[in-house]
């Protein structure tokens, strides 16, 4: 009781600003500065009496940090303005670490809302927070740890224009806690353009990595090619699937085709008439619609596919049609010894189960989801959409004699789920703060002289005794098309067939990571991101997104300039037509490669390696010369491009 009385007495004290007013000079929290300027703990009793308010807690926490890092580094911590991008697995850990380390000026951006499956690691969130914005809830939670911290949350996509160069310019350092390549590339470019240091981190299961990016001194995020999302050839998806993933891709497209908005680019657009006809009807018997769609997809369409004789051989037998009634008779479940340890959802259903599940999912969409027809899109977290995709993919696998999957595995693949645990994220977020302190100390100095490193989280065994393994930061790649040469070569199968809008979407956005690219050729704009689709408006601007590259007068060896104003990034593309571009490897019809600034070194490296090599060399030399000619053209055109940019 006595303690409570004291509590009140101390709360009545004015606690303006620092909250140091209740203490004797020289005492900070539970530490006292000794003659050497170091902090030593003072008695617990005094402490209980003194530290009664939030300000005292902050002071005590700050004092502990200061005792370890020293005055100078702590001052840097307190004044640094940070942008945290992402409030998920790494983001939650990071915000906690930053706030408790004494960082006070933090803004956080995240577009996501909280899902139940986040709760095993995103520890700032509770069940009651499900469906609320991550950034907002995370900021509220860590503010409780340090009420004096100034934390601003933004619920939005970091690619939105309000988070552009001007926004980034406000901060001293940007700290990434992202889970996808696209956003990472975007933030990388923003930081390069705004000349802000960037901390980059990632985790997958037990593994993780942290690194530091500073323009001109280190590799940027895109200096080394990153594996981009796999694109499958149209024919594999539409007619000749070989793996479960092909059938799942097909099923996801099917879901969007049946229940989403009209989309010409859907891979199964040729099935649109049949699949979407129920949408127009006043009332639909969902069961009946389900069985009709079933018959069309897994029986009739398969019969048609089987007749395309040149697709099939002994190695690749034609698919077998499946009628609904026969499917219902097939009630046998494949089982293995391992099944006893499995969850129900991890077991493969019977064909009958898939057939019934498919019809039930369609019925549900036309029943309780009636309102959402025409505006739905596949999400792995939507149970009806996932049931539909799992059953449809399995039925197609049955058609093509591919081993069917459990719902659990189908969800992993269809949703590209990355396994994740709290411990790895805690390690990665901790390492990010380690690097952040090094970056703050290296402001105005050479990064090479700092202790900043790339650190790898090894698992389960250490590598040369190190379970967390630092390695030196690499210098920038001069050929990098983002921070280096800003020139890339794009090989296209056909300039005649490739529409400029397809090039912008598939190649420049998809592959080169631009957000809203504008394209220029010979000094004039040939594609404007404000007018991405053909139509009257575009035409008034003199734009024709549907025109092919040849129609725009581009030939092999032509040069295109790409400007992405939002990213503060531009690139020159040297166009080359390659009719024999492999369709399996490059289903999009294009191939992007770096433009080696020092191409002659590559040629000389192979010198004196025998006759066969000499032949190869001659070919290389010929190519190099062609490249050189292109390079001259590129340089000339770049001058033109600069004029264009100035005009804008």
């Amino acid at each position, binding site marked *: 009781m006595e303690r409570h009385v004291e509590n009140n007495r101390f709360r009545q004290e004015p606690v303006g600003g620092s909250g140091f007013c209740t203490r004797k000079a020289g005492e900070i*929290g*539970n530490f006292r500065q000794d003659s050497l300027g170091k902090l*030593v*703990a003072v008695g617990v009793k005094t*402490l*209980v009496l003194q*530290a*009664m308010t939030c300000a005292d*807690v*902050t002071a*005590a*926490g*700050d004092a*502990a940090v200061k*005792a*370890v890092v020293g005055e100078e580094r702590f001052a840097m911590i307190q004044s640094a303005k940070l942008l945290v991008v992402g409030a998920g697995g790494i983001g939650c*850990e990071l915000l*906690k*670490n930053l706030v*408790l*380390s004494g960082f006070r000026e933090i803004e956080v951006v995240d577009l996501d809302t909280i899902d*139940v*499956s986040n*709760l*095993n*690691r995103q*520890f700032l969130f*509770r*069940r009651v927070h499900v469906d609320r914005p991550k950034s907002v809830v995370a900021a509220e939670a860590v503010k409780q740890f340090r009420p004096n911290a100034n934390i601003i949350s933004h619920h939005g996509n970091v690619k939105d224009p309000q988070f552009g160069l001007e926004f980034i310019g406000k901060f001293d350092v940007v700290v990434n806690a992202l889970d996808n390549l696209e956003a990472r590339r975007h933030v990388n470019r923003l930081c390069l353009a705004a000349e802000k240091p960037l901390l980059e981190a990632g985790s997958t*299961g037990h593994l993780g990595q942290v690194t530091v990016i500073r323009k001109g001194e280190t590799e940027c995020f895109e200096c080394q090619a990153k594996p981009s999302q796999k694109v499958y050839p149209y024919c594999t998806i539409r007619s000749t699937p070989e793996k*479960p993933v092909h059938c799942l891709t097909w099923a996801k497209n099917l879901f969007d085709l049946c229940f989403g908005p009209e989309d010409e680019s859907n891979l199964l657009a040729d099935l649109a008439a049949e699949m979407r006809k129920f949408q127009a009807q006043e009332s639909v018997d969902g069961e009946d619609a389900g069985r009709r769609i079933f018959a069309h997809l897994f029986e009739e369409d398969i019969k048609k596919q089987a007749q395309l004789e040149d697709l099939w051989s002994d190695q690749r037998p034609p698919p077998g049609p499946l009628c609904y009634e026969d499917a219902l008779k097939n009630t046998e479940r494949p089982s293995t010894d*391992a099944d006893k*340890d499995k969850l129900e959802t991890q077991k493969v259903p019977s064909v009958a189960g898939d057939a019934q599940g498919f019809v039930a999912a369609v019925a549900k969409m036309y029943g309780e989801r009636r309102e959402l027809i025409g505006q739905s899109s596949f999400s792995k977290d939507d149970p009806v959409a996932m049931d539909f995709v799992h059953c449809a993919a399995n039925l197609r696998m049955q058609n093509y004699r591919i081993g069917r*999957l459990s719902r*659990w595995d189908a969800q*992993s*693949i269809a949703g590209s*789920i990355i*396994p994740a*645990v*709290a*411990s*790895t994220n*805690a*390690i990665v977020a*901790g390492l*990010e*703060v380690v*690097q952040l*302190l090094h970056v703050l100390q290296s402001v105005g100095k050479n990064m090479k002289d700092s202790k900043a*490193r790339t650190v790898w989280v090894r*698992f*389960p065994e250490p590598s040369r*005794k*190190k*379970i*967390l*393994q*630092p*390695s030196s930061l690499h210098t920038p790649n001069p050929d990098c098309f983002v921070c280096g040469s800003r020139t890339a070569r794009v090989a296209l199968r056909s300039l005649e067939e490739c529409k400029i809008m397809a090039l912008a979407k598939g190649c420049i956005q998809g592959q080169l990571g631009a957000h809203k690219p504008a394209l220029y050729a010979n000094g004039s704009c040939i594609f404007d991101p404000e007018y991405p689709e053909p139509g009257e408006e575009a035409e008034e601007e003199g734009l024709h997104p549907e025109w092919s590259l040849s129609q725009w007068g581009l030939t092999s060896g032509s040069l295109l300039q790409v400007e992405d104003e939002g990213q503060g990034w531009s690139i020159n593309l040297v166009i080359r037509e390659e009719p024999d571009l492999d369709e399996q490897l490059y289903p999009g019809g294009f191939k992007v490669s770096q433009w080696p600034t020092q191409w002659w070194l590559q040629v000389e490296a192979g010198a004196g390696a025998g006759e066969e090599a000499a032949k190869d060399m001659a070919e290389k030399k010929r190519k190099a010369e062609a490249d050189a000619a292109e390079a001259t053209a590129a340089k000339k055109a770049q001058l033109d491009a600069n004029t264009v940019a100035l005009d804008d």
Partner: protein
Amino acid sequence: MSAITGDQVAVYDRQLRLWGVQAQQRLLNAKVLIWGLEGSNVEACKNLVLAGIALTLRDHRTVTAADVGFNYFLRPEDIGKLRAECASKRVQEMNPLGSVSFSSDRPTSDDKLKELLKGFDIVVVGLSCLGFDFELAAKMDSVCRSLGAGFLLTVAAGELSFFFSDLHEHVMQDRSAQGGPEAGPTEPKAETFSFPSFGSWLAAVPELLQGKSDASFKLIGLLASFLQKDPQKAVPSRAADFATHCREVKCEPAVDGLVGMEQAFGHFFVEPLIHVASVLGGLLSQEVIKAITRKDPPLVNSVCFNAHTGAALVEHIPPVAAAPKKRKAEEEVVADLLDD
């Protein structure tokens, strides 16, 4: 073993996809004691309760402002109350599907110590909560051995953070699958790992101080040898004596980021930097999870993270005679290149 519920599947989805159902079931049936709510142990509380492990938090100390400033399970209104009790409420909130209990008991006798360690699969102890009594820690480890419980001990010093682990004769049954659902199952392969006791760790300290171990391990060894038989010396005011001791035993390791032995000594008595605790707590939690699930090879037996270099080292203390190198694996060559 009770079946995993639908609710659990929804929450634990992402980790079930990492370590599988059987491992999760083992975690749900495991009981872990966190003795000492300090440093990396706070982080371990978070990681382990989220993994679904039943926790008991034990600490006899009351909450101070500095605790609240570091331990995010505490609030200003907890000051003066019991640490374990206050923290347990908020650890529990973090995972309502888990179970969290608390205790403020102290080991007043050998029998009491045994009673306090009974019924746990793993015991994680903070040295500060034991009043820096290394001998007591060794005694706890030997009791844990007799009870068949794993024992981990954590020590923190500012930008350095350390743990020792003793899983006795640990049998690993399986390794994590590589490559996701499309890769298919792999044949489980059992392997046994022998851990030295903490008693033999302490006995090896003189050897450690003169040997080839990393400087960060030597610093922990120096603390142990300085406090030997007299844990009362574990107060910041004895920093100069510590420095003298280091000179006497002819071991003054240059730990990256630390200026001298006096400064190093002071760091043992403040909470570590939160991000240092975050890193070591993560590594420690992985070891607890490996021990319970019997999946993946454990780290034997001492781990130290240095925030100045960003490296976390693993050493076997006392050192084992190195087995003859069969071949320099490709991975090692890569590691060589990566190394500073």
